Protein backbone atom coordinates (compact mmCIF):
# COMPACT_ATOMS: atom_id res chain seq x y z
CA UNK A 1 0.00 0.00 0.00
CA UNK A 2 1.27 3.42 -0.91
CA UNK A 3 0.25 6.94 0.08
CA UNK A 4 -1.04 8.66 -3.06
CA UNK A 5 -2.05 12.25 -3.70
CA UNK A 6 -5.70 11.22 -3.33
CA UNK A 7 -5.19 10.45 0.36
CA UNK A 8 -3.84 13.93 0.98
CA UNK A 9 -6.63 15.54 -1.05
CA UNK A 10 -9.35 13.67 0.86
CA UNK A 11 -7.74 14.63 4.19
CA UNK A 12 -7.52 18.22 2.97
CA UNK A 13 -11.21 18.25 1.95
CA UNK A 14 -12.26 16.88 5.35
CA UNK A 15 -10.12 19.43 7.20
CA UNK A 16 -11.55 22.25 5.07
CA UNK A 17 -15.11 21.15 5.85
CA UNK A 18 -14.27 20.97 9.56
CA UNK A 19 -13.01 24.55 9.37
CA UNK A 20 -16.14 25.66 7.51
CA UNK A 21 -18.42 24.08 10.09
CA UNK A 22 -16.49 25.68 12.94
CA UNK A 23 -16.52 29.08 11.27
CA UNK A 24 -20.29 28.90 10.81
CA UNK A 25 -21.13 27.70 14.32
CA UNK A 26 -18.64 29.24 16.76
CA UNK A 27 -19.40 32.71 18.10
CA UNK A 28 -16.11 33.73 19.70
CA UNK A 29 -14.33 35.86 17.06
CA UNK A 30 -10.93 34.43 18.03
CA UNK A 31 -12.08 30.83 17.57
CA UNK A 32 -13.65 31.80 14.24
CA UNK A 33 -10.22 33.08 13.21
CA UNK A 34 -8.67 29.76 14.19
CA UNK A 35 -11.18 28.01 11.96
CA UNK A 36 -10.12 30.22 9.04
CA UNK A 37 -6.53 29.16 9.75
CA UNK A 38 -7.65 25.52 9.63
CA UNK A 39 -9.20 26.08 6.21
CA UNK A 40 -6.05 27.81 4.94
CA UNK A 41 -3.99 24.88 6.17
CA UNK A 42 -6.25 22.44 4.36
CA UNK A 43 -5.69 24.36 1.13
CA UNK A 44 -1.93 24.43 1.74
CA UNK A 45 -1.99 20.68 2.19
CA UNK A 46 -3.71 20.18 -1.14
CA UNK A 47 -1.28 22.59 -2.85
CA UNK A 48 1.68 20.53 -1.63
CA UNK A 49 -0.08 17.28 -2.57
CA UNK A 50 -0.57 18.54 -6.13
CA UNK A 51 2.98 19.88 -6.24
CA UNK A 52 4.32 16.49 -5.24
CA UNK A 53 2.03 14.53 -7.56
CA UNK A 54 2.66 16.68 -10.64
CA UNK A 55 6.38 17.25 -10.00
CA UNK A 56 5.78 20.99 -10.20
CA UNK A 57 7.36 23.41 -7.75
CA UNK A 58 4.73 26.11 -8.36
CA UNK A 59 2.44 24.54 -5.74
CA UNK A 60 5.05 24.98 -3.02
CA UNK A 61 5.64 28.58 -4.08
CA UNK A 62 1.89 29.15 -3.80
CA UNK A 63 1.94 27.74 -0.25
CA UNK A 64 4.71 30.19 0.59
CA UNK A 65 2.55 33.11 -0.51
CA UNK A 66 -0.51 31.73 1.29
CA UNK A 67 1.59 31.60 4.47
CA UNK A 68 2.59 35.24 4.12
CA UNK A 69 -0.94 36.44 3.33
CA UNK A 70 -2.32 34.38 6.23
CA UNK A 71 0.18 35.98 8.60
CA UNK A 72 -0.79 39.47 7.41
CA UNK A 73 -4.46 38.57 7.69
CA UNK A 74 -4.01 37.34 11.26
CA UNK A 75 -2.20 40.53 12.24
CA UNK A 76 -4.90 42.84 10.86
CA UNK A 77 -7.78 40.61 11.94
CA UNK A 78 -6.53 40.23 15.48
CA UNK A 79 -6.02 43.97 15.83
CA UNK A 80 -9.66 44.49 14.76
CA UNK A 81 -10.70 41.86 17.34
CA UNK A 82 -8.58 43.63 19.98
CA UNK A 83 -10.16 46.97 19.13
CA UNK A 84 -13.65 45.47 19.40
CA UNK A 85 -13.13 43.34 22.49
CA UNK A 86 -11.33 46.09 24.37
CA UNK A 87 -14.64 47.84 24.73
CA UNK A 88 -16.72 44.73 25.47
CA UNK A 89 -14.47 41.91 26.66
CA UNK A 90 -17.04 39.13 26.70
CA UNK A 91 -18.90 39.95 23.51
CA UNK A 92 -19.66 37.34 20.87
CA UNK A 93 -19.94 38.10 17.18
CA UNK A 94 -23.74 38.23 17.50
CA UNK A 95 -23.46 41.34 19.65
CA UNK A 96 -21.34 43.42 17.31
CA UNK A 97 -24.37 45.03 15.75
CA UNK A 98 -22.66 48.44 15.60
CA UNK A 99 -20.70 47.06 12.64
CA UNK A 100 -23.94 46.92 10.66
CA UNK A 101 -23.61 49.16 7.64
Amino acid at each position, binding site marked *: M*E*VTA*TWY*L*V*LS*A*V*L*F*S*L*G*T*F*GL*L*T*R*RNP*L*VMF*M*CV*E*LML*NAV*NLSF*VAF*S*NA*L*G*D*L*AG*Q*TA*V*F*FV*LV*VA*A*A*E*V*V*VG*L*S*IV*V*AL*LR*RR*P*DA*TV*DEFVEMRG
Partner: protein
Amino acid sequence: MVDVIVFVVAAVIVLGGGLGVISLRNPVHAALSLIASFFGVAVLFILQEAHLLALVQVVVYAGAVVVLFLFVIMLLGVDQSEDVSTEPIVGQRPLAAAGAGLILLLVLGGLFLSGPGGDDGSVALTGQPAAVTPIDDSQNIEQLGRDLFTSNILAFEATALLLTIATVGAVVLVRNQGGEDLVVDDPGSSVR
Protein backbone atom coordinates in the same frame (compact mmCIF):
# COMPACT_ATOMS: atom_id res chain seq x y z
CA MET B 1 4.57 0.90 4.58
CA VAL B 2 6.27 3.37 6.89
CA ASP B 3 4.72 6.10 4.74
CA VAL B 4 1.23 4.77 5.41
CA ILE B 5 1.80 4.58 9.17
CA VAL B 6 3.22 8.12 9.28
CA PHE B 7 0.34 9.39 7.15
CA VAL B 8 -2.33 7.76 9.31
CA VAL B 9 -0.79 9.03 12.56
CA ALA B 10 -0.37 12.55 11.17
CA ALA B 11 -3.89 12.54 9.70
CA VAL B 12 -5.35 11.51 13.07
CA ILE B 13 -3.42 14.36 14.74
CA VAL B 14 -4.56 16.85 12.09
CA LEU B 15 -8.23 15.88 12.27
CA GLY B 16 -8.17 15.53 16.05
CA GLY B 17 -6.69 19.01 16.33
CA GLY B 18 -9.30 20.34 13.92
CA LEU B 19 -12.12 18.74 15.89
CA GLY B 20 -10.64 20.22 19.05
CA VAL B 21 -10.62 23.72 17.55
CA ILE B 22 -14.29 23.57 16.59
CA SER B 23 -15.56 21.82 19.72
CA LEU B 24 -13.53 22.90 22.77
CA ARG B 25 -15.22 25.59 24.83
CA ASN B 26 -12.15 27.39 26.13
CA PRO B 27 -10.35 29.48 23.45
CA VAL B 28 -6.96 28.60 24.99
CA HIS B 29 -7.67 24.89 24.52
CA ALA B 30 -8.81 25.58 20.96
CA ALA B 31 -5.52 27.39 20.26
CA LEU B 32 -3.55 24.44 21.66
CA SER B 33 -5.52 22.04 19.44
CA LEU B 34 -4.67 24.31 16.54
CA ILE B 35 -0.96 23.80 17.31
CA ALA B 36 -1.46 20.02 17.17
CA SER B 37 -3.20 20.36 13.83
CA PHE B 38 -0.41 22.55 12.43
CA PHE B 39 2.23 20.09 13.57
CA GLY B 40 0.38 17.26 11.86
CA VAL B 41 0.29 19.25 8.63
CA ALA B 42 4.05 19.91 8.99
CA VAL B 43 4.65 16.16 9.27
CA LEU B 44 2.60 15.64 6.10
CA PHE B 45 4.72 18.29 4.35
CA ILE B 46 7.88 16.41 5.29
CA LEU B 47 6.30 13.20 4.02
CA GLN B 48 5.86 14.97 0.66
CA GLU B 49 9.47 16.19 0.47
CA ALA B 50 8.51 19.83 1.11
CA HIS B 51 11.09 20.28 3.86
CA LEU B 52 11.34 24.06 3.80
CA LEU B 53 7.56 24.45 4.00
CA ALA B 54 7.41 22.07 6.95
CA LEU B 55 9.97 24.22 8.75
CA VAL B 56 8.13 27.42 7.90
CA GLN B 57 4.84 25.82 8.94
CA VAL B 58 6.21 25.11 12.43
CA VAL B 59 7.99 28.46 12.83
CA VAL B 60 5.31 30.75 11.37
CA TYR B 61 2.05 28.94 12.11
CA ALA B 62 2.69 26.89 15.23
CA GLY B 63 5.09 29.55 16.47
CA ALA B 64 4.12 33.06 15.52
CA VAL B 65 0.43 32.82 14.60
CA VAL B 66 -0.72 30.70 17.54
CA VAL B 67 1.41 32.69 19.98
CA LEU B 68 -0.31 35.81 18.62
CA PHE B 69 -3.69 34.17 19.24
CA LEU B 70 -2.74 33.16 22.77
CA PHE B 71 -1.30 36.60 23.42
CA VAL B 72 -4.57 38.28 22.40
CA ILE B 73 -6.58 35.81 24.49
CA MET B 74 -4.44 36.51 27.55
CA LEU B 75 -4.27 40.25 26.91
CA LEU B 76 -8.01 40.70 26.63
CA GLY B 77 -9.00 38.10 29.18
CA VAL B 78 -11.51 36.50 26.85
CA ASP B 79 -10.50 33.04 28.01
CA GLN B 80 -13.78 32.31 29.73
CA SER B 81 -15.58 29.31 28.35
CA GLU B 82 -18.09 29.85 25.61
CA ASP B 83 -21.39 28.11 26.10
CA VAL B 84 -21.48 25.79 23.11
CA SER B 85 -24.43 23.73 24.31
CA THR B 86 -27.14 26.11 23.11
CA GLU B 87 -27.78 27.34 19.61
CA PRO B 88 -28.21 31.11 19.42
CA ILE B 89 -29.88 30.87 16.03
CA VAL B 90 -32.43 28.12 15.51
CA GLY B 91 -31.20 25.55 13.04
CA GLN B 92 -27.74 27.09 12.74
CA ARG B 93 -25.82 23.89 13.38
CA PRO B 94 -27.78 21.63 11.02
CA LEU B 95 -27.53 24.28 8.31
CA ALA B 96 -23.79 24.73 8.94
CA ALA B 97 -23.30 20.96 8.87
CA ALA B 98 -25.27 20.76 5.63
CA GLY B 99 -23.17 23.54 4.08
CA ALA B 100 -19.86 21.99 5.17
CA GLY B 101 -21.05 18.56 4.01
CA LEU B 102 -22.02 20.02 0.64
CA ILE B 103 -18.53 21.51 0.22
CA LEU B 104 -17.00 18.15 1.17
CA LEU B 105 -19.22 16.31 -1.33
CA LEU B 106 -18.40 18.81 -4.09
CA VAL B 107 -14.65 18.50 -3.55
CA LEU B 108 -14.71 14.72 -3.25
CA GLY B 109 -16.99 14.51 -6.30
CA GLY B 110 -14.60 16.66 -8.31
CA LEU B 111 -11.74 14.50 -7.10
CA PHE B 112 -13.20 11.07 -7.82
CA LEU B 113 -15.47 11.78 -10.78
CA SER B 114 -12.91 13.61 -12.89
CA GLY B 115 -11.68 11.57 -15.82
CA PRO B 116 -8.16 10.38 -16.51
CA GLY B 117 -5.54 12.68 -17.97
CA GLY B 118 -5.51 13.47 -21.69
CA ASP B 119 -3.24 11.89 -24.29
CA ASP B 120 -1.21 15.08 -24.70
CA GLY B 121 0.30 14.75 -21.24
CA SER B 122 -2.35 16.89 -19.57
CA VAL B 123 -3.34 15.94 -16.07
CA ALA B 124 -6.70 14.90 -14.66
CA LEU B 125 -8.55 17.50 -12.55
CA THR B 126 -6.88 20.57 -14.06
CA GLY B 127 -6.59 19.63 -17.73
CA GLN B 128 -3.34 21.56 -17.86
CA PRO B 129 0.01 20.13 -18.87
CA ALA B 130 2.07 19.14 -15.86
CA ALA B 131 5.26 20.65 -14.50
CA VAL B 132 5.56 24.32 -15.37
CA THR B 133 8.45 24.53 -12.92
CA PRO B 134 9.69 20.95 -12.64
CA ILE B 135 11.12 19.77 -9.34
CA ASP B 136 14.75 18.75 -9.88
CA ASP B 137 17.23 16.93 -7.69
CA SER B 138 18.75 19.94 -5.95
CA GLN B 139 17.82 21.02 -2.44
CA ASN B 140 14.19 21.95 -1.83
CA ILE B 141 15.12 25.26 -0.22
CA GLU B 142 17.43 26.14 -3.12
CA GLN B 143 14.76 25.44 -5.75
CA LEU B 144 12.10 27.35 -3.86
CA GLY B 145 14.43 30.31 -3.42
CA ARG B 146 15.34 30.33 -7.11
CA ASP B 147 11.67 30.12 -8.10
CA LEU B 148 10.73 32.93 -5.70
CA PHE B 149 13.47 35.29 -6.85
CA THR B 150 13.14 34.68 -10.59
CA SER B 151 9.68 33.81 -11.90
CA ASN B 152 7.78 35.16 -8.89
CA ILE B 153 9.81 38.25 -8.11
CA LEU B 154 6.89 40.65 -8.64
CA ALA B 155 4.63 38.70 -6.27
CA PHE B 156 7.50 38.57 -3.79
CA GLU B 157 7.88 42.36 -3.85
CA ALA B 158 4.11 42.75 -3.50
CA THR B 159 4.32 40.51 -0.42
CA ALA B 160 6.83 42.89 1.13
CA LEU B 161 4.42 45.77 0.52
CA LEU B 162 1.54 43.74 1.98
CA LEU B 163 3.48 43.00 5.17
CA THR B 164 4.36 46.68 5.59
CA ILE B 165 0.72 47.69 5.14
CA ALA B 166 -0.39 45.01 7.62
CA THR B 167 2.10 46.21 10.23
CA VAL B 168 1.08 49.85 9.86
CA GLY B 169 -2.61 48.85 9.86
CA ALA B 170 -2.25 46.84 13.06
CA VAL B 171 -0.53 49.75 14.82
CA VAL B 172 -3.22 52.21 13.69
CA LEU B 173 -6.07 49.87 14.67
CA VAL B 174 -4.94 49.12 18.21
CA ARG B 175 -3.72 52.62 19.02
CA ASN B 176 -5.43 53.76 22.20
CA GLN B 177 -7.19 56.89 21.04
CA GLY B 178 -8.22 59.44 23.64
CA GLY B 179 -6.55 57.52 26.45
CA GLU B 180 -9.61 55.40 27.27
CA ASP B 181 -9.10 53.02 30.16
CA LEU B 182 -8.11 49.52 29.20
CA VAL B 183 -10.18 46.71 30.60
CA VAL B 184 -7.74 45.00 32.92
CA ASP B 185 -7.97 41.25 33.11
CA ASP B 186 -8.56 40.26 36.71
CA PRO B 187 -6.01 37.52 37.49
CA GLY B 188 -7.71 34.26 38.30
CA SER B 189 -11.07 35.40 37.01
CA SER B 190 -10.96 32.71 34.36
CA VAL B 191 -10.59 29.97 36.95
CA ARG B 192 -14.22 29.48 37.68
